[in-house]
């Protein structure tokens, strides 16, 4: 019997797991995919929102601002890339100034610090590639960018190091209330728990419905994006949003923490909770809207496109609370944008609700810091040579586009909750995320995985777990 079972190893579930690991107890995370960060958490804008969007007084506003505030310290504790580059909401029509003012006031009411309106000239100085039509902008210096994978992975790893068990490829098929708590039916057998945290992303309503009659309804809202080459990464230096206009909501243009440029998303409600395919119309929309607030976006430098699903709840509000009719069952549902920003605060909130129920002892051995995968390019040449002398694998570059060494890939595989697939390696160390999109390095990374992961052979190496195998046989095997 676990004290807490957390369903879902995305940012919310992982944040909750880490916060709960501050206490003593038996904790487990159930994840239907083969790795952490496989759903909404991996395909989004990678933005740390300042917090002026959500309505005043909403939980969304509160947790956004709190999450933003926490992000700086957390990124140091857990060693993941986060940059407070500031964001700008661009107004391209004098008649829309009122809307800009509204955002400013809402932001101030939400507790967002240092917001101000910047005028045409200052704006151009800050952001030379802003649209010629831009008349003013709302500047939020606390806005930032983060690596969503590493934020998620860092929180999960830290939770694991502090004793939380993670079970992958484990899908929850049903939950029964028992006298002492819950019996969770999974494809890998039953798991019993005194309390449950539901952090199941686009499935949070389905999981919730297994124990509660209170209505939660989630619609997967698809967002499609273009990711541009690093040669385009300096096109803007802040996250650039557009004020919604008659033409609808614009797309954002932002640098990423790794130096690429990200453009998107669209927003289309769909039915399929696994519908992460891009569409011709969606990509065309991103391309058409890219120039809304930024000029000359170099879309020729696209290296990939992707789609993510936001877990949109009908009320457009975060639901982080104990279900009224299922004591011990805590939802983290409706975690759409700004969910990534809010995730540390969501985890903290969920943990505090659990603690109010379970009254656990503090974990005196809790260690809140984690060292990320060593990035040799940040070392001095002397330090790097010392490293290569001790660990020659750091001298072999595997991914040439991103300059990722074998040493980094081995670290990604062998650390807690290590990578087991090509995508797992990619999310941890970016091997395969560059301009050739794994053309050159995938056979090499496959070989390393087959060599290093116990029990894995080359023909079992997958792109992302499950049936995503890359090799189907050997030469002439069916001739």
């Amino acid at each position, binding site marked *: 019997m676990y004290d807490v079972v957390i369903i879902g190893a995305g940012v919310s579930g992982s944040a909750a797991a880490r916060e709960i690991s501050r206490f003593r107890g038996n904790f487990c995370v159930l994840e239907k995919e083969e790795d952490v960060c496989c759903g909404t958490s991996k395909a989004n804008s990678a933005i740390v929102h300042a917090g002026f969007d959500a309505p005043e007084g909403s939980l969304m506003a509160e947790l956004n601002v709190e999450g933003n505030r926490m992000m700086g310290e957390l990124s140091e504790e857990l060693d993941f890339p986060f940059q407070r580059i500031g964001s700008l909401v661009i107004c391209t029509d004098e008649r829309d100034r009122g809307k800009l003012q509204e955002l400013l006031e809402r932001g101030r009411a939400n507790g967002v610090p240092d917001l101000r309106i910047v005028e045409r000239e200052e704006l151009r100085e800050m952001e030379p590639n802003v649209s010629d039509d831009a008349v003013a902008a709302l500047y939020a210096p606390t806005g930032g960018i983060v690596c969503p994978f590493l934020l998620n992975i860092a929180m999960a790893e830290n939770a694991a190091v502090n004793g939380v068990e993670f079970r992958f490829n484990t899908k929850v098929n049903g939950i029964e209330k028992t006298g002492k708590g819950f019996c969770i039916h999974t494809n890998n057998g039953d798991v019993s728990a005194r309390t449950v945290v539901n952090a199941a992303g686009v499935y949070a309503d389905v999981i919730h419905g297994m124990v509660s009659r209170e209505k939660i309804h989630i619609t997967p809202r698809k967002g499609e994006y273009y*990711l541009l080459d690093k*040669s385009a990464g300096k096109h803007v230096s802040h996250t650039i949003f557009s004020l919604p206009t008659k033409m609808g909501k614009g797309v954002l243009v932002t640098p990423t923490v790794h130096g690429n440029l990200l453009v998107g998303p669209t927003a289309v409600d769909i039915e399929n909770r*696994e519908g*992460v*395919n*891009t*569409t*011709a119309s*969606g*990509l065309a929309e991103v391309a058409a809207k890219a120039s809304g607030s930024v000029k000359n976006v170099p879309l020729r430098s*696209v*290296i*990939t*496109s*992707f789609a993510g699903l936001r877990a949109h709840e009908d009320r457009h509000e975060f639901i982080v609370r104990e279900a009224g009719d299922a004591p011990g069952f805590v939802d983290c549902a409706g975690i759409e944008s700004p969910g990534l920003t809010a995730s540390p605060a969501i985890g903290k909130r969920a943990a505090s609700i659990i603690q109010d129920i379970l009254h656990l002892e503090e974990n005196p051995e809790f260690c809140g810091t984690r060292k990320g995968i060593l990035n040799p390019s940040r070392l001095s*040449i*002397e330090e*790097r*040579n010392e490293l*290569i*002398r001790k660990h*020659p*694998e750091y*001298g*072999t*570059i595997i991914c*040439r*586009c991103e*300059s990722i060494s074998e040493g980094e890939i081995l670290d990604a595989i062998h650390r807690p909750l290590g990578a087991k697939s090509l995508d797992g390696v990619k999310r941890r160390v970016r091997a395969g995320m560059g*301009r*050739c*999109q*794994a*053309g*050159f390095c*995938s*056979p090499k990374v496959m*070989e390393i995985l087959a060599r290093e992961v116990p029990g894995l052979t*080359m*023909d079992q190496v*997958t*792109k*992302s777990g*499950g*049936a*995503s*195998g*890359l*090799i*189907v*046989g*050997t*030469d*002439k*095997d*069916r*001739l």
Partner: protein
Amino acid sequence: MSECMQADIVIIGGGPAGLAAAVAARDAGEDSILVLERDSRLGGILNQCIHNGFGLHTFEEELTGPEYAQRFIDMAAERKIDYKLNTMVLSISRDKVVTAMNREDGMFQVQAKAVILAMGCRERPRGALNIPGYRPAGIFTAGTAQRLVNIEGYLPGREIVILGSGDIGLIMARRMTLEGAKVKVVAELMPYSGGLKRNIVQCLNDFNIPLKLSHTVVDIRGKERVEGVTIAQVDSHGKPVPGTEEDYTCDTLLLSCGLIPENELSAQMGVEMNPVTKGPMVNESLETNVEGVFACGNVLHVHDLVDFVSEEAENAGRNAVKYVRAMGRPGSRKETGAVPVLATDGVRYTVPVCVRPDYMDDKLTVRFRVGNVYRDHYIAVYLNDERILHRKRQILAPGEMEQVILDREKLKNVPDLRQIRICLEKD
């Protein structure tokens, strides 16, 4: 870091271009040459090109890729040319300090007098093609699949659709068929194939594999592994025509949609690029705008025949030696104006982009590609306004590289030579 090493000529890349450049430089009398190769063996991409058809020009016999590579590896070995394997060049400074790394030496620097860029090219990935759909396993560039099959002995798929009719795609259509896979169709966006005619006949027609011109992939299905793709016809702007969609079930999509010279190192050191070739702009000596930095092979412009890569690289090697020898000699570098070589009227680009008649050999080969399929056209060369060449060709196609030879005497005899123009003419 260990102290800076020295070499007269550092060659970035030990594939066919780098090796041919090294051999030619040694034969021109250069002692101090260092080849830096990122892979675990010399020969570059030829090691995985196990089909025949290489070497007809260079060796007057038909070789496979590994055999062709081995000839040059042997020549380099006979000449005791220094090289380092598994060595990644991280940067090259404008004053030619090459920073590289491997397991044995760690990070090290080499001060070169001349640098020859021979890094080759990479394939255009799915992401850059903006194909909508899922992103499952089973989407490979043709070259990645080629490596898995030919080097590792693995089959990446059993039921295959190929997008793009570049030569690697055509070669892989046959290769996968001969390994027991079923290649269902090759779709090509353009109204003509990007590959060599003989590859269409011997790789597709021989095995009854259909080639659909003016078609592209408009959807990829399957969340974990590819389950199928949809192919549609495209209009003259390359836009899919609604109602022409056809579904194919398959477990693999191979992409052969173009090659891109790998010029990140070049760009980083300030080498000017030709937006058409995505390779450096070079003069008659195959020298870039950065003095003493030369380029050859697929990093300069994508070739279809390795024989021409070798020939071009040999020139780069010899020119680098000339440069090193002339260094520091007063007045050695006559800064006479370079004459631009213009590509117009159907000619997409030329290599080189300019010529300094004082520096050119007696004969200079100018290579170029045309932008479309042209029947019964003339290749014309103008010096200023005077036409010096007018050669009829029954067919010119983008997939086949063309060349003209310029004569130094002729160039020198034109008073006030302002431009050389290469174009196509109807009559």
